[in-house]
């Protein structure tokens, strides 16, 4: 790795010529970054202020209701989201991590099919989520006849986050230096033993960070569920993987589309819950990265 810091003395020599312009440029750059941050702060303050009257126990004790927005809750959405995320973690994380191991440790880049897999993954990472909704609707709900169930939703979301899991796991695996592998192989370990006992343990923090960020993307996703018949205000909690369901972001969407002011407050309160969950997950991911990331 190249050294990234610039020599102090060089900077001081260079900036003596046009200090004002240099300062303005620096301020403009900082201002651009500040705009994004101030915006984020405004957004959070706004939803907390809007949703404050409804941030109480009834929010998660009650089910959504069209007739009584002032006491309606989001319980079915929270349970639906938990089911979807649990199943997504079970399906997408192992598949994604295994695929990442293949691409980093085994794949021969001179073979056309390995290059195709790589190109395909980077393409899939940028396919709009609504198109994954069409995939879920056309292939999983109708062709495989899984219907509008938790299972359909979880498979769809798993496929959606899979490229993200693969890409971040690959980065974590790539960060493990070759000398670790060489040492293990030199001691007589097979390639899989090397991966399983050396490479994976060393890259677990990075993989965990990426996985948490991928799952937090899955929690916030609403568009695919619009296509999967989860749009209505479900008034019961899911009982199994073949149960119909709703998820929190979609309930928020359906609250937003209603004209009454009470629904806007309810939507804001539900957004606060959603953001709190996501912020928590993000903090855990960032903490993991800072705490366990090794510099080789």
């Amino acid at each position, binding site marked *: 790795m190249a050294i990234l810091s610039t020599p102090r003395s060089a900077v001081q020599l260079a900036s003596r010529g046009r200090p004002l312009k240099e300062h303005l440029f620096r301020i403009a750059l900082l201002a651009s970054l500040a705009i994004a941050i101030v915006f984020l702060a405004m957004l959070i303050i*706004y939803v907390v202020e809007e949703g404050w009257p409804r941030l109480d126990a009834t929010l998660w004790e009650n089910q959504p209701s069209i007739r009584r927005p002032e006491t309606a809750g989001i319980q079915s959405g929270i349970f639906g989201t938990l089911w979807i995320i649990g199943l997504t973690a079970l399906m997408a994380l192992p598949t994604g991590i295994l695929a990442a191991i293949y691409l980093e440790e085994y794949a021969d880049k001179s073979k056309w099919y390995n290059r195709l897999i790589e190109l395909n993954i980077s393409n899939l990472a940028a396919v709009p989520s609504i198109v994954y909704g069409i*995939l879920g609707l056309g292939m999983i709900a109708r062709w495989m006849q899984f219907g509008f169930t938790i299972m359909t939703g979880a498979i769809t979301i798993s496929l959606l986050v899979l490229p993200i899991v693969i890409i971040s796991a690959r980065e974590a695996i790539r960060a493990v230096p070759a000398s670790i592998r060489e040492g293990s192989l030199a001691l007589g370990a097979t390639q899989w033993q090397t991966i399983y006992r050396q490479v994976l343990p060393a890259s677990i923090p990075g993989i965990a960070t990426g996985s948490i960020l991928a799952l937090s993307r899955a929690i916030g996703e609403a568009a695919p569920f619009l296509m999967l018949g989860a749009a209505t205000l479900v008034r019961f909690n899911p009982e199994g993987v073949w149960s119909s369901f709703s998820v929190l972001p979609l309930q928020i969407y359906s609250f937003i589309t209603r004209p009454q002011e009470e629904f806007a407050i309810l939507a804001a309160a539900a957004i606060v819950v959603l953001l709190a969950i996501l912020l928590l997950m993000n903090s855990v991911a960032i903490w993991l990265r800072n705490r366990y990331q090794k510099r080789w």
Partner: protein
Amino acid sequence: MAAQHLKTASGASRSLARSRPRYGEAAVKVVLLLAALVSIATTVGIVAALLEPTIEFFGEVSLGEFFGSTTWGPLFNPPAFGVWPIIVATVEITLIAIVVAVPLGLAAAIYLSEYATPRVRKIFKPVLEVLAGVPTVVFGFFALTFVTPVLQDVLPFLDLEAKNALSAGLLVGVMIIPIVASLSEDSMAAVPNGLREGSYALGASKMLTSVRVVVPAAFSGIVAAIILAVSRAAGETMIVAIAGGFKSVFTIYPGNEMATMAAFIAQAGSGDASVGSTAYKTIFAVGSLLFIMTFAMNYVSARMVQKYREVYD
């Protein structure tokens, strides 16, 4: 750099390890390959899901009507299938988003890569990650209930409708700032220090070095980031569905309500079209168009990175 060392090293050691057949090792490789092939199956599944209804759709609605007329209303009676209004709306909202995100994202990237101390970077990068993790329904809600009313108050002459392309586009722009910023920063960080030092040695200031040396050296990565951001903006659904609305009028005035392609899919797909009807098949036709557009952009972006990447070692 490091990745290449690794490749040659593990390649050499692999030939040593493979002196006699190990069936367990081979089985592991097959399982791993199968996991990687799930991604290929996903693409095949998307194409399969889109293809059949799209072909059926064009059996019922001619290509000439689809691309040749400018009235869109598959859910109306009588229906109209001129796709241009939703294409124009998609392009317009994407343009607004790019105007917001490219300058802000690029400036943030230059700051983080060239100016920020490691400590400052450690604070700002997570904030950008949090911004990237905000669900799009939240941005949509903010656009509809906060940004639009504020714009209506501050700029009354714009004559904004309650749902409009401007607010939707602005928020889509905010949504893609982290994409532009973090991918551009990655490619700027990959520019070797020798180039910066050479520039300083010739007497260039920090600003000149950033703008004339680092940014051009990282250009392919920056363009790839922007293309990726464009494709994310074009496919964004919840923000445009909530704050941009579902009305399809052939207009370019951003103060009007206008439905994008993704917004139409969301509207028709969430139950407004009955299964098997022409309107229902329209979802898949528009989906195909959106998929082809974003796929083409992603492909160009990936190739840009592969082909024009300056390799410094």
